[in-house]
């Protein structure tokens, strides 16, 4: 079987497909790809909702408005060109996240206290 072991180190999108100033392999124009983050209501974080194509940031925000907020999904939009997202590698998962596994004392449930103790 033909196996692909290419690993990508830029967000969800392989670098060369990220658009922007990267060299184009196709003859036809392809607008850069942007990631869209939306705050659904005041007080909440912006959350990644998807991606879209646009030629610049202003257009990306408007496209996000037209594509991702048609059902009152948001009140604020962030966009970032996909190629600028840097992401951790799945290969590092063990070294990055597993050492946290045994630090149970960081969690409130670790402490065995009498039931009479209130408001703690």
């Amino acid at each position, binding site marked *: 079987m033909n196996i692909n072991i290419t690993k990508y180190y830029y967000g969800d999108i392989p670098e060369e497909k990220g658009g922007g100033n990267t060299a184009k392999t196709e003859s036809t124009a392809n*607008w850069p790809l942007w990631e869209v983050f939306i705050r659904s209501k005041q007080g909440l974080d912006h959350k990644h909702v998807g991606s*879209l*194509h*646009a030629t610049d940031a*202003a*257009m990306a925000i*408007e*496209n996000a*408005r*037209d*594509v991702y907020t*048609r059902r009152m999904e948001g009140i604020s939009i962030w966009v970032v060109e996909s190629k600028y997202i840097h992401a951790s590698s799945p290969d590092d998962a063990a070294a990055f996240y597993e050492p946290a596994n045994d630090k149970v004392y960081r969690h409130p449930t670790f402490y065995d206290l009498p039931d009479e103790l209130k408001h703690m």
Partner: protein
Amino acid sequence: MQTLINYTLYLADNALILAQRNAEWCGHGPILEQDIALTNISLDLLGQSRSFYQYAAQLINAEHPSAMPATEDSLAYLRDVFAFRNILMNELPNGDWGQTVLRQFFFSAYQFPLFERMKHSSDATLAAIAEKSLKEVTYHLRWSSEWVIRLGDGTEESHSRMEKALDELWTYTGEIFEPAPYEKAAVEAGFGVDATSLKDAWMERVSNILQEATLTVPAPRWMQTGGKEGKHSEHLGFVLAEMQFLQRAYPNATW
């Protein structure tokens, strides 16, 4: 009362016919994101037309009680060409994407100051519809302005296409500010907006955007008029034939 009805129908017809034209793009846009964007504008305009038609129907039914009361649909689907009051520009075929966005820009640049004034209309319903619509139009104006700039100041091809579109449409822009008798009467009655008074603001905005788009404002020329008083181009008949087909083919059916 008849003045208010006519004036409201004018506002409704303008919105409906442009919504219908813009809707023709759905599924055929230059890129998915913009296909969706233009459809949003079409939906907004369609919504505006419905608000105006519903109000007009209410007024008509109060004035002329009938066994077959007027509805938004009877007004949209059962009037013939001469009863439609939309400006000629809105009924023109779409042309290319450039012509479509330029027309949208011209129209939004008119609707924007119109609704800004109309939200203070002495007629509470018109004022309320204007206030709601103004938010939509603010976005249409922004979107269409940006597209005019982009295409005017884009590639050589897009620039020459925009010049052509400008030449095509300019002759229809004068009608916007040539008030029909019912518009004048509406101003006198206190609920209408004086179209002539919107011209300077429109021209200033249009000049600025065209300049940014590296396009030249055309020299004054003969302006086509007539739509506001039911004297249309040949295009409207085909728009209506298509739009009204089912209502005409199956009279009195419910859909």
